[in-house]
Every structure is written in C-alpha cells, then in structure tokens.
C-alpha cells in the first residue's frame, strides 16, 4: 500500500493528462478557478495582509492592541455568547417545528410552515425593528400598555429574542430534512420491539437526529455571530459584539487596518465552527436522502403531547405574526407610539427619497442571482461529473464564503478592489460580484444533490442513442439541473435583496440598497419609513418567488415545483 501523498500525486498526474485531451474542460476549469481566486480568496488575503502589515512592516501590533484591551475581548466574548445562545434557542424551536410538522397531525400545518419560512425571506433585522416598535423606549407594549418609562430591551435580552426569531427557520429546514429522510419505520420498529412512544423518541428518533442537530447548532452559530443588523440596532453600547465593532472601526474611525484585524479575529470562531460542521459533523450523518422519503407515521406522539407541541408552535407562530403585523401597522402609522392614525406618508417617503435605492436593489439582485445560479450549476457539474486536478479545492473555495462573516468579506472587497486595474468600489459591479460569489454555495449544493440522484446510465443512454457529449449535456443533463438552478436562483435573489453585512461597506452614493436604507432609517429614528421599506422589500421578494414558480409551472412538469418547497 502506497502512502496517501504518492496516491495523490499519481491521481493528479493522471487527471492532468486527461485534461490535455479536453480543451473546453480545461478552459472552463481555469476560468472558474480564476474567478474564485479573484473574488473569494484574494479579498481574504488582502484582509490578512493589511491587518498584519498595516504600515509597511509585518507586525502584530494591531492584534496586541485589540486583544490586550478589555473592550474587544468583551466584544469577542459577547459574540460567542450570543452565537451559542442563539444556536441553542434557534435549534430548539427549529426542532420543535420540524418534529411537530413531520411527526404529528396537528391542525394548521400550512400556517405553521408559513410562519417558520417567513423570517427567511425578510431582511434579518426585521425582528429587531419590530422589537423596538413593541418593546423599545416608545414601545407599544412596554410604554403604552404596561407604562414602563425605562425598559431595557437593548442588550443581550432583546438581541437574543430577535436573533432566535431570525435564525430558527434555518434550523427548522435542516431538521425537517433530517426527520423526513429518517422516515417513520425506525420508530415503528422501536415500538414494535416494546418501546413506549417516549422511549422511542429518546432512544431512536433523537439519537438519529443528533448529527442534524449538531449541524443546525453550528450553522446558527456561524450566522448569528456574523450577523450585523440585529446587534447594531439592539446591542447598544452595553452589549458590543465583534461584527458591529468591525463596522464601526471602518466607518466610524476610518481605520481600515484596525477593521481588518478585528475581522480576522471574528473569522476565527466562524471558520472553526464551519470546519467542524463540514469535516466532522457532516460525516456522521446516518441517513442519506434516497429521494423517496418514506411516508412518516403519525402515531409516534400521544394526543396530550401533540397538543403541547401544537400550543408551543402556535405561540412561536403568533410571535412571528405579531412581528410582521407590527411592521405592517408601523408602515401605515403617522408616528409610532404617539399617533397611530393611518397614513401613506411613509410610503410617499419610500417612493420619493428611496426610489433610487429600490431600483438599485432590484437591478443588482436581478443581475447577480441568475449568474449565481448558473455558476453554481457549472461548478456542481464539474465537481460531480468531470475529473480534473483541484476538484476538491474548487468545491472547498466556493463553499468557503458561507463561513466567512459578511463584514469580513465587505472589508476584503474594499481592500481588494479600490485601485486600478481592479477599481470597482462605488460601482454596481462590486455589489454584484459580492452577491454572486457569496451565494453560490446553495446553488452548488442543490446542483450536486440533483446530480448525485441522476443515474450516470441516463447520460450513457443518451450517447448510446446517438447523442454527442455536447448534445447529451444540452438535452439531458441541463434540463435535469433546471430545478436546482432555480432553487439556487431563488436563494441568491432572496439573499441579495435582504443581505446587509457585506453590502453596507460597498454601497455608494450611486448605488444604494434597500436594506442599508432600512438600517439607516432605523438608526435615525424614522421607524415608520424603515417599516415601509421592509414591507415593500418583503412584497417584492414574495412577488418574485411567485413569478418564478408561475414560470416554472408553465414550462415544466408539476413535480419540479416540489423542489422549491
């Protein structure tokens, strides 16, 4: 048996030789690698470089300063605490929903599902905005109903509330997939062998879900410490977190090297969690999706437990509903907390002063998301169906951006693209590139999932019937990838419309985004305008998703729609 290195060398040489015979493949691989290196790796290198070499000579000065001071240490600690608590709370609620919706026959499932999905298609700080409207200094509940003069919603308490509500849907989607793929037969088997429902849950269902739960915890941790909008609005000065400090360092103190150093510090917990998720937890999965989920049994839960689950889910759903209703009412109120009489003034403001941001956002989202979908499919196809050197590296780099907090990427882009020949700052291109390369991972993942399910014999059958390799790709592989392309497209569209953490560094007077507007209106205390912007944003996203579904329904079989959940 030879050692792994010589095996690797042997394979690489073999693959390189193969590449020589396929010039189109070689060009495609080289082009994609070039783009990935330029728009993902290079900005990260710039962040590192600037933080370690702030003024010509390599030094650890910035890190010594930051980590030596109590403030940044506290912010780092706060970030981690917030991340851990959000992960635990969000995963708990996510599991609750996933279990109740897959394993019981509680009433109102469509509404509960909608409540668990809604936060995904809205800007991440909508809940923060509602929390201020409801519990803030002028809050409807705290001040108007309960008469508090001072209610400390700012800080960990309010932040946690908004973070959990923002991110539990991610855990819900992950765990729903896990529970569905487990089917119900294993629980049936446990009960058949004499386990009570309770024991079947603790001894079979839960252990089998553990890898999924661990994965949800880590993903929520990553998203939560990377998040920027909620802590900026709700953290206040009493609860500084690192992602906000990065932003303030750059925009408040015009200290790019300092911001870069903080970004590198923020990168450490994120990337650690990402690597654990990808290389440890992901390998421990018990079940692979076979594409044919067994019909879940509905008797694993006693009627009493079922009603408890129903009550808990309903409570969460009502909270979500309350948040969105608040935004809606806020958007049509004259002055929140003072005068709630209906008005269209806020929308007048949005369509007047904010019209530019609306069109900018749409132009950028509509341009970047199809490109992200296409690139995602391309990478998925190459990684799954072709052999070339650096295949694993390509997959890793393209997924890496998922782990890198948006603020880090934002700084990286400013540093990387602020001078000729790569002068992109202030243009639409820098925003488009940012969204394009940040949101390919979902397209890649759904693409690889589809390709894994397509029997290679299907492509062989096409060539066997006389189709050339190109025709086979065009007539067989490509149409089969269409659903994955659209789910990648929908995801990146939603993200391009709602993202803020990287974009806030990249907007300019010429190109502004709605999310940035919502944030600055909130900071300026114009909550009505912020609410109106949010309502409009959510409506645009819903309309876009509806439109895409309609188009797909027209073109393709009904069954493809299931893919978009």
């Amino acid at each position, binding site marked *: 048996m030879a050692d792994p290195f010589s095996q690797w060398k*042997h394979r690489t040489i073999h693959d390189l030789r193969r590449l020589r015979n396929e010039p189109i493949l070689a060009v495609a691989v080289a082009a994609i690698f070039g783009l990935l290196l330029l728009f993902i790796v290079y900005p990260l290198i710039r962040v590192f470089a600037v933080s370690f070499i702030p003024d010509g000579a390599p030094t650890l000065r910035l890190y010594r300063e930051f980590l030596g001071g109590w403030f940044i240490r506290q912010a780092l600690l706060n970030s981690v605490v917030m991340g851990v608590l959000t992960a635990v709370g969000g995963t708990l609620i996510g599991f609750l929903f996933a279990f109740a919706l897959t394993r019981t026959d509680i009433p109102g499932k469509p509404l509960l599902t909608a409540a668990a999905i809604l936060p995904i298609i809205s800007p991440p700080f909508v809940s923060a905005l509602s929390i201020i409207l409801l519990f803030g200094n002028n809050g409807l509940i705290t001040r108007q109903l309960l008469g508090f003069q001072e209610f400390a919603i700012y800080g960990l308490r309010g932040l946690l509330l908004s973070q959990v509500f923002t991110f539990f849907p991610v855990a819900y989607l992950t765990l729903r997939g896990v529970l569905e793929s487990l089917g119900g037969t294993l629980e049936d088997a446990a009960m058949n062998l004499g386990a009570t429902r309770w024991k079947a849950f603790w001894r079979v269902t839960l252990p089998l879900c553990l890898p999924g739960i661990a994965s949800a915890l880590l993903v929520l941790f990553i998203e939560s410490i990377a998040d920027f909008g909620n802590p900026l609005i709700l953290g206040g000065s009493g609860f500084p977190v690192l992602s906000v400090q990065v932003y303030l360092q750059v925009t408040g103190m015009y200290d790019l090297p300092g911001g870069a150093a903080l970004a590198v510090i923020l990168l450490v917990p994120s990337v650690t969690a990402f690597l654990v998720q990808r290389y440890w937890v992901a390998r421990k999965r018990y079940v692979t999706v076979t594409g044919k989920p067994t019909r879940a049994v509905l008797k694993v839960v006693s009627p009493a437990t079922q009603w408890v689950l129903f009550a808990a889910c309903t409570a969460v759903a009502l909270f979500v509903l309350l948040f969105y209703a608040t935004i809606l009412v806020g958007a049509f109120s004259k002055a929140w907390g003072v005068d709630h009489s209906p008005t269209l003034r806020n929308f007048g403001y949005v369509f007047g002063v904010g019209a530019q941001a609306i069109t900018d956002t749409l132009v950028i989202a509509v341009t970047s998301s199809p490109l992200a979908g296409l690139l995602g499919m391309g990478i998925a196809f190459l990684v799954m169906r072709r052999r070339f050197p650096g295949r694993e590296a390509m997959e890793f780099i393209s997924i890496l951006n998922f782990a890198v907090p948006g603020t880090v990427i934002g700084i990286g882009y400013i540093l990387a693209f602020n001078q000729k020949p790569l002068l992109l700052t202030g243009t639409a291109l820098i925003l488009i590139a940012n969204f394009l390369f940040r949101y390919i991972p979902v397209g890649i993942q759904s693409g690889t999932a589809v390709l894994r399910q397509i029997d290679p014999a299907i492509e*062989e059958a096409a060539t*066997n*019937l*006389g*189709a*050339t390799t190109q025709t086979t790709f065009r007539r067989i592989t490509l149409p089969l990838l269409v659903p994955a392309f659209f789910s990648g497209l929908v995801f990146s569209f939603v993200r391009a419309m709602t993202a803020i953490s990287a974009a806030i560094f990249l907007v300019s007077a010429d190109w502004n985004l709605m999310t940035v507007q919502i944030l600055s209106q909130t900071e300026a205390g114009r909550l009505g305008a912020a609410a109106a912007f949010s309502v409009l944003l959510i409506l645009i996203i819903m309309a876009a998703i509806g439109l895409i579904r309609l188009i797909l329904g027209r073109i393709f079989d009904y*069954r493809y729609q299931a893919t978009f959940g």
Partner: protein
Amino acid sequence: MSVVLEQVTKTFEDPHRPGGRVTAVDDVSLVIAEGELVTLLGPSGCGKTTALRMIAGFELPTAGRILIDGHDVSRLPPHARNAAMVFQSYAIFPHLTVARNVAFGLEMRGLPQGEIASRVRAVLELVELSGLEHRSPEQLSGGQQQRVALARAIVTEPRVLLFDEPLSNLDAKLREQMRVEVRRLQRRLQITSVYVTHDQAEAMALSDRIVVMEAGRVQQVAAPFEVYARPANRFVADFLGRVNFLEGRVVSVGVTGVIVEVQGRRMEVPWRLPAPPAGAAVTLVVRPETIALTPDPAGRDTGFRGSIRRAVYLGATAEYEVDWNGTPLLVVSGNPLEQSLIPEGAAVGFDFSPCTVHLLPADSPARS
C-alpha cells in the same frame, strides 16, 4: 450484422494500488453471427458487463479489436456506434414523456418529424404501450418502464442490441413474461443481440448461444442444451444448475464409450474425443434430476445404496440429500405428489442412466 471480439482485453487502474492494474476482461475472442442472441453469463465481477460496455463504447479496450459488421469500431465514440442498449436501471430520461423518450434516438439521427411520429407510434404498439405516449416516466409501473427502455432501443433499428441485465429489477412472474417477450421481439426483428445476465434460467430461456465467463475469461461458448449437458469444466458445470461430482477411474476405452469405475461399480459412459486413457482419474458430472430413487430397496438390485439424510418438499419437486457411504449426494425427484415423500433416515436404492453422465478430466477447474 455480426459482432466480433478479437482478443479483447480490458484492464483498469487499481484504486488501491497506484500504478497497479486490475484485469476485467482477459483476452476474449468471440464471433456473434447476424441475427443471433448471445448471452454473456457469469457471476458478478466476471467481466461480462465490461465486455458489453466495450461493445457499446462506454469503455475502450486496452488491447484487441471490436468489429461490427466487419468494421473496426474499437475507437468509435458511443454515439457513433448504433449499438442500442437496454440498461439495468432502464435509464429513462425522467424529464421527458414516454413518446419523447422513444423519439430521442430518432431525433439524434435528424429524422423528419413526421417519420419520427409514425415510427414512435409503431414501436409503442409493438411493445403494447399505445395510449401511454404522454405519460411521464414516474407514472409507469416497472414493467412499463422496461418496455419503454426496450422500445427506445429498438426504434432506432440498431445494428446491435445490447442488454445489461434488463430484467433484474422486475418481480419473478413479470421477469418470466418479459423474457418471452424479449425473445419474441428479437426473433421477429432479427437484430443481433448481446445479453448480459447472471441468471442462468434467463440465459437458458433466451439464448441461441451462451458465453459462460469467469474471472475475465470465456469458459465455454455453446448452445444452452450443450452448456448444461456437456459443461467444459467444473466451473461451468457448477454455475449452471446444480450438480454432483463423482470421482471415478477409467477402466477401459471402448468404441462407443469408456468403462468407468465409481465406488466399485462399473458403467459405460459415452465419451467424445479425445477419450481419456485407461487408468486416468475422471470426474463424473451427474445432474441431481437424473438420479432415480427406489424406496425399500431390500432384496432388489437398485444399483447404488444409501440413506436419506435430509428431505425437502418444494411442491413441484422434492429434494433429498442422500448419504452414500459418507458422500453427500443431491437428488431432485419430480412429481412428489405421486411418489410421496421418502422420510429422513430411510434406506434407499438409487441409480442414474450412464448416458446422462458427462465426463471431465479429474482436474478441470475454471480456465484462468
């Protein structure tokens, strides 16, 4: 169109040993005549599927040539070979309807729309799928999907039809039914066919000739009757059906056969040239259904004597394991309804007709 394999060898890179090779097909030569259906039969890993995939062009031979209709196709890409394949998984395009699936090969050949439509209609009628043109594949049963795969392959009027274990995903009843249908279609269309299976009953029922393979090599090529009755070696005898191997010795060589002594009893066994010399050790291939049992043998001449060690009733047949002086012997007797079951432990007499016996040299394992 004939298909010829000339000393075809295929080696793969050994995934566990850099630089090492694994031989999947080892120096196989084969001539398949026009209109013939030949089955490649063997256990999994014997190289039969690799051989088929080389004819289709999905794999290129490491050495040797493949000729279709006298033309060397060894280096042609799959789409230029006109050798339609029916896949084990059917490989039906999931995003196309039944009719579009069947039309695919015709579209690739650039036929006019009108002709495509009429040929698709005709072939669907042939495989009894008329009326299902606009179904999507997932709305079809396994048997119907199988027919679509078959229709899609034959509609292009291929030079060669290739089958890769096409019936292995069907249940037993449907499999037997489809077996008959495949044979009927192939006879009617007269397309030269290569059929890969590990199911010997399927091979027997379908084939003009069977190619038995093991470890990448051809062990025997012959008609089904021949392969079963006169296997070339112990591997073939054992792989097709069930068998008893009795060790014996040649006493003398006569004109019509050889006299063989088995456990003290002599019998004259037919032998084809070259006959083994007197004194040579031989193996007698005795099929279990050729052995007749006699209950209550006391005082009668019944040939050999033994006792029933195990009796299994199977409905159409009964299977016995007979203890013959310590050697276990498998016997299958038909019509147990009339003969009733012989109880375990009973003494029996048994005999077999020497003309059903096939002789092998004592040391004749598989060719490798």
